[in-house]
Each structure stands twice: as structure tokens, then as C-alpha cells.
């Protein structure tokens, strides 16, 4: 690379990475606070993290429409990145709100949790902002390594250990693919800048074999991160074993980050090869939706069920990717945001109902909830309907745009497979409602505790799920503006 240091400094604009800076500083400060402020309760750390996240989100939002590249074009703060950053803030913010109660109950309320969540968020943000393969890779590693620790955070629980180790091994494996792919792409084009790769690829005319293989390997790497079939094998065990709030985070934030980098790489760097990769994505979307849904039908454990359903949801988003038009990509952005609300909302209810040692995690344990706690059951119902894609919820609008994108591009069959999958998924979401509303409790619920932070998370997620289903216009337009620049 022919950049000298003086030039490099000229192009540095710290404002572009201000959200990341805020979060990193906050994370480090929290590590210190955790040591020097002796307190048994760690709840205040959650509020401090939330403050940091809100500040980062606000800073990011002020950059809307500015589109500032920095670090000689390896990072950019454009609308696309900002939209994703807001998704990450939502996901991480809701996660910190539901963490305290869970960690307290499971006896692993170490203060390091919150800095780790913030660091993983920084990683996600860099992935969304990165316009250079190296930046994206660094972001991905920062995100992943923090997540490996978070997945195994409940040291005393053997399943959590398994989850962390499994995630680490398979994650490292997939990173290998990604890195190899990036190396090949660099070899073929002589640059790691996404925009320059696009120029080089366009000049080649007929796609170069090395470039194609590189793109394919990159696709594999990202497919691991978004848990697309056939690279989904790690998901159920990791999701089931990880502490529930972390599962909530993993199924939303990193998935969105994966899509952010995936979209930017493929739509900016490899549009000339679209004919080659769009069929692959088509097949992957079908497999991901179908496999995720079919296996989810058989799950009794609610975390596992949500894990498989999360695979299916990645499949729906891939439908928009396969279409690769504005409707589809904007649809992915919108869907990832709504998915963060509805999925973490559902996990919040799982956290509330869980008992020590994760002993209360089966669908059967939801029996009779509607009598005992009608409000809790009602809001869970809202999240489940939204996940199932039934109006008037955000999940429906999201799916509508994704499937519309497919129809718009002439992929009618893809849309049909998508809606049939939605119909199948209704069954397992309804099953939870059947237990909540239509079956009597098998044993006494005992006292279900809903702490203030969780209440806040439930209300925010619930209001957003409903509001984005009834008046989605504004956010859809934002999403559309966000994808126009890339």
C-alpha cells in the first residue's frame, strides 16, 4: 500500500469512530469502576453501560447524512453504518437491561460482563463501518473474541463452558475461511479497500477464478457468522448453553453485524459477479429458512427453539439479500432492527421465567402463565406473533419487504417458499401460546420477579414491536436512505 504516514494523518477524522471511542472508553472505565467501587450488586454497571450505549448511539445518529470517510478510506461513517450502529445499540442496550437479574440468579454476576458487552458492540460497529477488509476483519475478531468469553461466562455451568468452547473453536475455524478468502481477493486485485476491489474486479471483465474462490470463501465465513445453513451447526448448542441474555445478544447483534459486512462486501466489492453469487444466496436462503423451521418444530427447550428460529430468520433476511435490490437490502436493515426488538423481548420473558440453573427452560414450563401473569403472557404473545410475521407487528412489515424484494426481482418461488416457511413457523410459536393460555400450570409458578430494568426492556421492545408494525414508514425510509449510498 502506497500511503505515507503524513497522508494517513491527514485523512484521519476521529468523528467517524466517535461511537466506538465512547464505548471503548466507557468499557475500560467500567472495568476500573468495577474494581474500585466495592459493591455486591452490579446493577449500577448496567445503567452505566446503557448510558454509554445511548451516548454512542446519539453520537452516531448525529452523523446521519454526512458520509465521512476516514483513515484513508478504511472506515466510513455513512448512513448504512449508522443504521447498523443503532441496531447494535438497541441489541446491546436491551441485553444489558436483562442481564443483571439473570446473572444474579445464576451466581455469576461479575462486573466484567458489561465491559465485554460493550467491547463486542465496538467490534460490531467497526464491522458496519469498515470499508477495508482489514477493518472488517478486526471488527469481527473484536466482536467474536468478546462473545466467546461471554458465551462461557457462567463458569460454574458446564453447558455454558461447552457453549463458549464450541463457539470459539468453530468461530476460529470460520474466521480461517474468511481470512483465506480475503487473502485470495487481495491476491487477485492487489488491494484490501472494498471500493478498489470493485474497480479491479470491474476491469477484469470475465471474473477471475482466484477472485471467485476468494469471494466464495468470504461468503462461507460470513455465513458462519449469520448462522446460515449449512454453516449453522454451532448455533443450537452455543445458544442453548450461553447465558440467556447473551443468547439474546448473539442472535441479534452479531447477526446484524454479519449482514452489515456481508452486504457491504458483496454489494460494493463484488457486484460484477452478482450472477455468480446470487444463485448461491438463493439456495442458502431456502435451506436456511427450511432447515431452521423444520428443526424448530421439534424443540421443547425454548432457548433451542428460539435458536433454530433464529436460523430461520437469517434465512428470511437472505431472501432480501438474494434479491439484492434496494427493497431487499433496506428490508434486511429494517428486519434486523425489528428482530432485535422482538427476539430480545422474547428472551427477556425467558429470563424472567427461568429458574436457577436454567431449570425452567421448556415450553411446558410456560403452562398457565396467562393466569398467573397476564401482562407477561400478553407481551410474550406480541413478540411471538411478531416473530411469526403476523400483522399488525413489526415482524410482518419486515417480512413483507423482504419477500416483496424477491417478487420484485422475479424470484416468485423464493417468496413462496418463504411464506410457506412462515406458515410452518407459526406452529411452534403458537405452541408456546398454547401452553401459556390454554393449559393449566403443572406446578406453582412461585413468585415471578420482574425487576425494573427488565420491565423497561420489555416495554421498550413491546412498544417498538407494535409501533413499527403500525407506523413503519419513517424507519423504512431511513433504511432505504441508508442503503442508497453503498
Amino acid at each position: 500500500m502506497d500511503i505515507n504516514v503524513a497522508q494517513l494523518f491527514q485523512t484521519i477524522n476521529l468523528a467517524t469512530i466517535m461511537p466506538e471511542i465512547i464505548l471503548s472508553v466507557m468499557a475500560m472505565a467500567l472495568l476500573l469502576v468495577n474494581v474500585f467501587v466495592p459493591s455486591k450488586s452490579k446493577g449500577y454497571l448496567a445503567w452505566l453501560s446503557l448510558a454509554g450505549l445511548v451516548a454512542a448511539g446519539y453520537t452516531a445518529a448525529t452523523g446521519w447524512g454526512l458520509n465521512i470517510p476516514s483513515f484513508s478510506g478504511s472506515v466510513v461513517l455513512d448512513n448504512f453504518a449508522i443504521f447498523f450502529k443503532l441496531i447494535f445499540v438497541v441489541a446491546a442496550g436491551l441485553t444489558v437491561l436483562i442481564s443483571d437479574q439473570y446473572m444474579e440468579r445464576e451466581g455469576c454476576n461479575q462486573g466484567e460482563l458489561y465491559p465485554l458487552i460493550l467491547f463486542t458492540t465496538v467490534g460490531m460497529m467497526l464491522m458496519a463501518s469498515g470499508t477495508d477488509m482489514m477493518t472488517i476483519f478486526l471488527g469481527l475478531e473484536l466482536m467474536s473474541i468478546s462473545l466467546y468469553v461471554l458465551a462461557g461466562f457462567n463458569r460454574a455451568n458446564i453447558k455454558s463452558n461447552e457453549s463458549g468452547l464450541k463457539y470459539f473453536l468453530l468461530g476460529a475455524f470460520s474466521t480461517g475461511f474468511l481470512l483465506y478468502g480475503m487473502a485470495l481477493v487481495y491476491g487477485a486485485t492487489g488491494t484490501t479497500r472494498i471500493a478498489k476491489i470493485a474497480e479491479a474486479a470491474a476491469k477484469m471483465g470475465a471474473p477471475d477464478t482466484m477472485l471467485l474462490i476468494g469471494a466464495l470463501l468470504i461468503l462461507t465465513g460470513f455465513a458462519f457468522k449469520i448462522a446460515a445453513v449449512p454453516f449453522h451447526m454451532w448455533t443450537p448448542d452455543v445458544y442453548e448453553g450461553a447465558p440467556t441474555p447473551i443468547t439474546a445478544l448473539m442472535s441479534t447483534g452479531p447477526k446484524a453485524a454479519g449482514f452489515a459486512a456481508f452486504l457491504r462486501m458483496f454489494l460494493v466489492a463484488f457486484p460484477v459477479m452478482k450472477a455468480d453469487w446470487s444463485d448461491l444466496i438463493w439456495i442458502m436462503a431456502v435451506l436456511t429458512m427450511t432447515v431452521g423451521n423444520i428443526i424448530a418444530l421439534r424443540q421443547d427447550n425454548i432457548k433451542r427453539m428460539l435458536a433454530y428460529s433464529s436460523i430461520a430468520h437469517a434465512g428470511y433476511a437472505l431472501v432480501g439479500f438474494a434479491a439484492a435490490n434496494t427493497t431487499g437490502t433496506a428490508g434486511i436493515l429494517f428486519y434486523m432492527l425489528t428482530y432485535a426488538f422482538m427476539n430480545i423481548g422474547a428472551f427477556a420473558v425467558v429470563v424472567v421465567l427461568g429458574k436457577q440453573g436454567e431449570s425452567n427452560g421448556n415450553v411446558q414450563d410456560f403452562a398457565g402463565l396467562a393466569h398467573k401473569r397476564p401482562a407477561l403472557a400478553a407481551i410474550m404473545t406480541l413478540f411471538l406473533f411478531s416473530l411469526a410475521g403476523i400483522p399488525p407487528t413489526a415482524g410482518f412489515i419486515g417480512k413483507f419487504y423482504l419477500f416483496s424484494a424477491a417478487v420484485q426481482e422475479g424470484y416468485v418461488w423464493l417468496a413462496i417458499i418463504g411464506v410457506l416457511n412462515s406458515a410452518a413457523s407459526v406452529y411452534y410459536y403458537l405452541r408456546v401460546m398454547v401452553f401459556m393460555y390454554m393449559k393449566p400450570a403443572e406446578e406453582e409458578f412461585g413468585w415471578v420477579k420482574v425487576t425494573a430494568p427488565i420491565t423497561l426492556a420489555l416495554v421498550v421492545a413491546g412498544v417498538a414491536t407494535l409501533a413499527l408494525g403500525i407506523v413503519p414508514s419513517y424507519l423504512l425510509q431511513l433504511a432505504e436512505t441508508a442503503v442508497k449510498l453503498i
Partner: protein
Amino acid sequence: MSNILSVMTFLPILGVLLLLFIPKESKGALRGVAMLTTIATFAVSLPILTGFQTNADFQFVENVPWIAAGPFAMRYNIGIDGISLWLVILTTFIMPIAVLSTWTAVEEKVKAYMICLLLLETGMLGAFISLDLFLFYIFWEVMLIPMYFMIGIWGGKNRIYAAVKFFIYTMVGSLLMLVALIYLYFLGTKAGITDFSLLHFFDLKVDPATQTWLFLAFALAFAIKVPMFPLHTWLPDAHTEAPTAGSVILAAIMLKMGTYGYVRFAMPLFPEATHQFTPLIATLAVIGIIYAALVAMVQEDVKKLVAYSSVAHLGFVMLGVFSLNEQGVVGGMLQMLNHGVSTGALFLIVGFIYERRHTRLITDFGGLSKQMPVFATIFMIVTLSSVGLPGTNGFVGEFLILIGAFESSLRWYAVIASSGVIFAAVYMLWMFQRVMFGELDNPKNQVLKDLNLREIAIMVPLIVLIFVMGVYPNPFIEKMTPSVQKVIAKARIEPVATAKAVAPVTVQPEAAPAHPAAEKPAGH
């Protein structure tokens, strides 16, 4: 009041909000608020009826932008015409009756039940008045949710199976319709249509091959809802398990969504495909009429019998609607109302005896007329109306349908369907005889009490309607005729001569001689 339709549609939601603030122990207050809400909704709907001008236009229209993003623009576009008018009135009319019928039947979770009922009302009204395809879809789906809970929570033994079956069946159909709807929209955007308003799509020329697919997707969704043979299997389950109010609403209003869907959407949007599929749909309708009648005959459960009779009745409606002439469609529309009134009443009646005896098996009864004379009289009237005795509403509808079908290309179907009328008399009267006449030998039946005042009050409006619509159906027919003519004009294939060279129009060659009336330009 310019937004009277919105007020009517969302008034029940206001009731729901009120209900949320009433503690669940005060059942009386909960019932009262629900009752008042439905009555208020009915009251609001009356000025719509009186203010309705008898012409083919959509009236009380409200049209404001709602969602605009990407390639789509959805509008909150509602309005009413002769086709939806009576269905809306039927809905607001049936709802207070449904609420009143739950007074003593539902003792558990009254609050949730009333919330479900009111949400359901908003969903149904919204679906009938939507003039925006997307908005229609939203309401169409929203209806499912409260009905699912009503069947699943307050239903009988097998309620969970029935509820899930109901939900998934309807969902599969409607999701395919959603894809068709999106496809249609993108076809429209190529022709310059910029939003989901139904009226724009009426003028859209879709090539016949595409029409076939789109029609199939719409028709499937509606056929499941109607339900048409062989997609009817969810209905007996849902009806048998649902609580009385659920069955009443399901039969009286929700099934009409399907037939309404054909008249409002599938037929005028895809005329060539309608023509192409008429024989198939008529065949299924006739099979439904005969098959459901035969199955009804052997039912041991009164409620299941009534459920199957619904399938047969709606077969008649479909036959009439697909005759595509004025008598047929008007007859079909009228029969929808008749079915709503008489089958709704039948389900209420079944509810009355179920509440007393906690059984619905025909063999558990016998000789009830001696013990319950008022009940017997009311039951008799409703049974005769369901059978289609002249002087009751059922006769007018069925007669018009058969005439319409006979005069159209469906002549032989009409001939076969007529036997269904006889079958209906057989199973209904036989059931009536076994339940009401004979020996009053079961000791449990000997202590049965006759209908109380509340129950009579529930039935009286329905009985009055049965006779009014039977003796003087003109006001009903008059108000719907212009809109029906408009639909027929749209649904019939325009002959080549009148088609301008704007878009390719393909005409089935055999259509023109069969329908001399279609030679007229398909204006309004």
C-alpha cells in the same frame, strides 16, 4: 360525520382500552362495557345504512397516506358500497347478540373473552371496509388472532387441536395470497399504479396466464375461509370446539369473508381467470352442497350438524356468485346475510341447550318441545328459515341463486344443487324431530327450564329479521344491486370489439355467444 367508518371500526378498540382498566373480578362491569361498546358500534353503523345512497360508488370514503417506503405506498383507504354495506351492518348487528349470549355461558376469564370479541369486531369490520389491498390483508390476518384464542381458551375438549388447525389452515392460504398481492402490485407499478388502492387495480389489464396464477392464490385463501370442499375440514372442528359466541361469529360473519373476497377481489380483478375457473368452482360448490348435506345427515352432534349445514349453505352462495348474472350474485349476497342470521341463530340455539345439559348429542334429547314450548317455537322458525321455507329469508336467497345459476352457463349445476335443498330439509327436520319431538323420557330433560328473558331477547331480533328478509327483501336487494351490476360488468370478459389497443386483451372465444349481455361495453 366524515369519518364515521373509522369511528365504527375502531370503537371496539376503545372498548378494549376501557376493559383493561376494569379488574377481572368484576364480571358484571366487564360484560356491561363490552355490551355497551357493541351496541354503540351498532348505533354508529345505523347512520351509514340510512345515509347510504343507492348507487354503485364507494361511499363514506376516507383516504389518507399511511405507509410510503421503497416501491410501496399503502393508504388508509376505506369505503363502503352495496356489497360491503350489508355485511358491515350484519357484523355490528350480530356482535351485541354474541356478547349477550356469553352472559352466563362464559364464567372464566371474562375479561380476556370480551377483549377477544371486541378485537374480532374491529378486525372484521376493517376487512369489509378496506379499499386498500394491503390494509385489507392486515385486517384479514388480525381477525385470526382473537378467534384463535377464543377457540383455544374457551373451547371444548379438543379445542387446542381445533384452534391450531384453524390458524394454520387460514394462514397458509392467506400467505400465498400475500405473494400474489405483491406480484399484482409490481404488475401495477409497471402500468403506472402507485399505491395499493383496489380501484386502480380494477382497471389493470393482466394477461390471462398470469391471471390464472394470481386468481388461484386469491381463490385458495378465500376458499379456505368459505370453506369450500375439499378445504372445509377445519370448519367442523373449529365450530364444534368453539364457544357459542365464537361459533356464531365464525358462521355469521367470518365465513362471509371468503365469499366476500371472491366478489370484491378475485372476480373483478381477474375476469379471464374467473371465467376459466367457473366450472371448477361450481363443481366444488355443488359437491360441497351435496357432500356436506349427506355428512350432516349422519351427525350425532347437533353443533357438528349445523357446522356441516354451513358448508352446504356456502356452497349455494358460491354457486350464485359464480353465475355472474344479477340474480345469481344478488342471491349469493343475500344468502350470505341469510346464512349469517339463521345459522347464527342455530348456533345460539345449540348454545342454549348445551348450557343447560352440557351435551350436544341428538340421542341425549327428545321431546323437548313439551318442556320448552317457547324454545321449540323459536327453534322451529330458525330451522325452517335454514331449510329455506317460503316466507323466511332462506327461501329468497336460495331461489335467486338457483334461478341465477339456471340462467347462466351453470344450468346443470343448478339442477344438481337443487337436490341439496331437499337434503337440507331432510337433515334439519330430522334433527329437529329427534331433538324436540318424541318421548320426553330422559329424566335430565324433564327438568329443563324454558328460555329466560335474556335468551328470548337474543333471539327476537333474529326472528324478526328472518321474516322481514323473507317477506320483504326488496330494501336489501335494492341497495346492493348497483354495486353487484358493477362487479358483474367487471368480472365478465370484455369482448374484443370494445377493447382499445392499449393493452393486450385475450378473450375466451366461447364467452361471447354464451353471454350476449357481455356485448355491452363493460362500463358502469
